[in-house]
């Protein structure tokens, strides 16, 4: 019992803080439009109420026995002016709404971009966080709606307050009746609303799946496989079945609710009937003018409409509240900066992994278990291991995309957590295993690694020479300004898998640093290019530390030191000759490939 109370209270606080958040966000998005919108709302609420009142005076003025024409004319004048103003305001409201909508969207988009790109990489590994992020992406309208419905609630409340007082003055019983008759309607609505929320959470993943299946049909990356195996019919069947199941279930519930809600609404109309009869009685008794009759009837039907409005706005508001909590959870995720230290990393340090144990969030087993090794400055290191042994994970830990659960990673004896995280990353040049096929001008694709230098053609040329990308772009008329991909231009150039790898390598070289990390640099490269890039690495970049992951063991033969990873730790370590002499896993893997060339 007590706990429930606390639960309720915290739910209330959460709602309150969500409201605060919603209002603050909408205010920050555009102060000017926010204030204008508030004024507009005020106008919208006040004018009809004033007009109803004026109308009473006008009618009474026309039909009253003794005429006070001066007052009536004044009322009429104000009434006309206000009506006219309202017409003008309609024209502006639209403008205001659309402009505010744009500003708010821009603001929220930027917020989402900022937050997503600054939070930990592990964010993408968790389905529930992924749900939240997608919520933000799809539901940036929630904050907008929150503000909108807040406005609507405020308008309804202020409207109701004034109308209610006015009705109260006429007849307290009618006022009470109007409110009481709507209570069952409100309850049914609230219950249904709760159900819709529940449903949304339950069905969220199914709906994401439906979207996934829809996107499959339009995704160029899926194109070849889907056509090859004739999968379109299959995917549309799966999608349609999923949709039909959900829809039918929801439809049944919705129907039950509609029936109930309409019945209760009819009950609510009784107060209207009562008002007519009571007003008529009052008129007959001579206590009410004919203008007063119409005034009362208008008031009561307005009160009822406003109450109904309030109920639906409140429900919408609560529905958004739930989504907003999700968005705020996401926004409150700690940015990477917060885990960052302050020190600047040394240039070309000694790198040490000391008893490092790591598993991915939510994963069942360790990827690395008590893994230790040392990389001396300016050494060439080869990293070898079977698929799934954790080679790429090592790199992610070194860059602090993830932090190990146990053990530490040291640069010159200092834990990497003490360094500034972005400076730490900037001290490496890296080629990731997965090269992203960006749809941007070539210049930007290469310069992503040092975006401030985007306009430096000299540097771009040097990076292209080092990676072999100069061969690819030799006959491109637009040079570095050629757009790749067909995302937003029709004549965008498309590169082959190997060429993409070369361009990614150019990006790694574009960024100056003393340490180079290459994850499978030659996976899709032809023998000549492969030879060239390793020549570059071992001869020309000899003053730098390098770490190369490769399954083509010929590429790491020349390394100063080869680390063989397996079972989450370093199994073998030494130069090529030492490892061959040892006759272990490395020797086995090497001879498997070498034998084919004999």
């Amino acid at each position, binding site marked *: 019992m007590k706990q429930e109370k606390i639960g309720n209270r915290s739910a209330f606080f959460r709602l309150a803080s969500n409201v605060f958040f919603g209002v603050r966000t909408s205010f920050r998005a555009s102060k000017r439009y926010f204030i204008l919108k508030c004024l507009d709302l005020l106008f919208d609420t006040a004018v009809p109420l004033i007009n109803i009142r004026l109308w009473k005076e006008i009618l009474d003025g026309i039909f009253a026995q003794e005429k006070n024409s001066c007052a009536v004319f004044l009322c009429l004048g104000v009434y006309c002016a206000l009506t006219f103003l309202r017409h003008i305001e309609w024209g502006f409201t639209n403008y205001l709404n659309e402009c505010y909508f744009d500003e708010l969207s821009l603001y929220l988009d930027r917020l989402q971009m900022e937050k997503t790109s600054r939070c930990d990489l592990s964010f993408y590994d968790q389905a529930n966080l992924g749900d939240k992020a997608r919520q933000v992406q799809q539901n940036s309208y929630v904050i907008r709606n929150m503000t909108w419905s807040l406005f609507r609630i405020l308008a309804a409340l202020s409207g109701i307050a004034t109308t209610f007082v006015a009705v109260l003055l006429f007849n307290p019983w009618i006022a009470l009746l109007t409110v009481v008759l709507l209570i069952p309607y409100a309850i049914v609505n609230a219950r249904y609303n709760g159900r819709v929320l529940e449903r949304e959470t339950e069905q969220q993943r199914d709906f994401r799946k439906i979207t996934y299946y829809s996107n499959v049909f339009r995704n160029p990356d899926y194109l070849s496989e889907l056509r090859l195996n*004739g999968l379109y019919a299959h995917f549309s069947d799966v999608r349609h079945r999923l949709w039909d199941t959900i829809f039918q279930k929801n439809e049944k519930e919705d129907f039950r609710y509609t029936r109930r809600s*309409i019945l209760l609404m009819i009950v609510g109309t009784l107060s209207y009937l009562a008002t007519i009869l009571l007003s008529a009685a009052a008129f007959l008794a001579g206590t009410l003018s004919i203008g007063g009759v119409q005034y009362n009837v208008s008031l009561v039907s307005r009160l009822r409409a406003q109450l109904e409005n309030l109920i639906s706005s409140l429900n919408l508001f609560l529905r958004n509240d739930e989504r907003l909590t999700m968005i705020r959870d996401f926004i409150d995720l700690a940015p990477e900066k917060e885990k960052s230290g302050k020190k600047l990393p040394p240039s070309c340090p000694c790198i040490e992994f000391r008893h490092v144990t790591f598993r991915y969030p939510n994963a069942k087993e360790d990827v690395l278990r008590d893994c230790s090794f040392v990389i001396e400055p300016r050494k060439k290191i080869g990293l070898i291991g079977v698929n799934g042994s954790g080679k790429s994970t090592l790199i992610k830990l070194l860059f602090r995309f993830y932090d190990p659960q146990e053990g530490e990673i040291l640069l010159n004896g200092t834990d990497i957590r003490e360094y500034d995280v972005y400076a730490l990353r900037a001290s490496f040049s890296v080629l*990731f295993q997965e090269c992203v096929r960006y749809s941007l001008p070539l210049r930007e694709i290469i310069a992503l690694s040092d975006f401030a230098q985007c306009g430096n053609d000299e540097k771009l040329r040097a990076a292209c020479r080092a990676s072999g990308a100069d061969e690819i772009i030799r006959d491109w008329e637009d040079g570095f300004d050629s757009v790749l991909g067909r995302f937003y231009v029709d004549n965008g150039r498309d590169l082959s898998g190997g060429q993409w790898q070369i361009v990614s390598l150019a990006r790694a070289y574009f960024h100056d640093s003393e340490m180079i990390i290459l994850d499978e640099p030659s996976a899709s490269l032809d023998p000549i290019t492969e030879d060239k890039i390793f020549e570059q690495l071992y001869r020309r970049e000899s003053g730098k530390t390098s770490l190369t992951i490769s399954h083509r063991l010929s590429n790491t033969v020349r390394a100063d030191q080869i680390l063989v990873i397996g079972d989450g730790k370093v199994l073998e370590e030494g130069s090529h000759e030492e490892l061959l002499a040892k006759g272990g896993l490395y020797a086995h893997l090497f001879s498997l490939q070498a034998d084919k060339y004999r």
Partner: protein
Amino acid sequence: MPKIKLYFRALRFSFSVQWKANGLALVLYGSLLLIATTATLVTTRLFQMVLDAIAAKTQLPALLPLAVLLALSLVLQRAAREFSSRLNDRARQKAIEEYERILIRHTSSLPAAFIDSKAGRILSEELRHYNYNITELSVSLLFQFSEFYAFFAAFVILARYHLPFALLFLALTVPSSLVSAIYADKTDRFRWENSPDRQKASYYRWILTDPTPAMDVRMYNLTDAMTDRYTSQQGAYLTRIKKLRAKHTLFTVLTSCISGAGTLVFLLFTISEAVAGRLGVGSIALYTGYAATAMDSFQNLSFSFGWSWVYGTRKAARLFEFFSLEPEAPEPPARKLEAFSSLAFDHVRFTYPHTEKEILHDLSFTLNKGERLFLAGINGSGKTTVVKLLLRLYEPTGGRILLNGHPITEYDVAEVRKLFSVLFQSFVRYPLTLRDNVGLSDLARMDRDEEIEDALNESGVYDDLREKLPDGLDSMMTRRFSDTGVELSKGQWQKIAIARAYFKRAEIILFDEPSSALDAESEDRIFRSFSEMAEEKTGIMISHRISGARLASRILLLEDGRIAEEGTHEELLEKNGLYARFFALQRDKYLTKEGV
């Protein structure tokens, strides 16, 4: 004239979608609208009668029936509106779903080249957003009918009261309706013309929010740079649309003044009539009520029709353009595909659509049943393009491809594709179950656990994977749709894609860079299985690992879209050309140091 035709065609389309999705519910919706409108008119009239009765000092018992009737009519009006709006919610969902299904069906029949183009992407993205606008056209028509009915009824009553004033009143509402229709048209054109710009902005957003470039973003701290680009791109668009909007607002306010003046003139006229004693209190309520109804209905009608017209002509035109695109295999194929015997490229030339550079020049070769073909070449020489042409994802721009001696275009394209088990260089990673990931290459056999396991074993990934699977073959891969989903390394994914190719057990095996991410052991396994597969199977392998070429019966070396060298491993070594150089480059690295 053609626009009217287009509009009617759009209406027809919308009706057929709605009818298919909702059937009789559509009729019910229409009837409810009529009931609601009628009830609104009746309510206003009853209200006048009640007021007049009260003013005439009618006693309560005599007043009661009239008052009850008024309440009933009000109830009917509100119930009908409420019910029709719920019905509309439901109908809308169903119609939008039906529309999406039509789009999906048509998209899947279109040539690959279309989907892979900018125009295709923009069109199919845009059309998706039209779902509501287009399906709603027919419902809007019902709405317009009911609004017209309300307007007409109210107008007739007003006209009977005073024709000139009614006409004046009507005339004054016309300009604002016109403005909204013109604005609808302009806004749509503006949005369409600017959609490439908006796409560009959304691309910068994609970079910062999608998992694909997430590591680059963090590595290079790209947040600020990309946000700036997004903001300037999007900001420029917003400034432009704001200008358009401001102009429109100016006109709206002007025309609103006119219609406002109309309302006032009518109001003052009514009041002056009342003052002169020609109108009772009920009649004032009646006429002002009907004037409001007439004006609202007329504005709703013109507004709704204005937008409908824009959607039905502009947006629908894009939809019909999409429908009129030629499907991938337009004519029913004439020739029945017998067992595979040979495949030949006959002077094939190819240039990708929208580009100038020819990728393949005059390419000719033949592949006979049982052969093992190895395709080598430097990066960008057109190897993967050969695969795309073979599978008819693109059509050659010159020359022909022959299957069993006949042009490949004479066969049913689906039949041709059934011949191939393919591992693509950029294979798909389905965030679905492991069973889906393997079995999707042959749906009919997808439920055969044993065969799926065989394929996984053959590619060598099952030993690794087995203990990680929470639900066996039905475990989800990746955490996208499940918290217990299994995450894999790139090499493991490649092996699963290979298992998918094996599972199909088609006549021709086609591997494009099968070992790019594989460790030595797995590579050895794949190469061996390629050379040791059954005699009657045919194989094509594309790889930079020249060691694999020795296992092939014939090697083709592509250079700049032409065949530079052709022969067996020994023949090509003897020739001492590019192939020999490739081989030596790789061999030397393994063997020179080993001897030391």
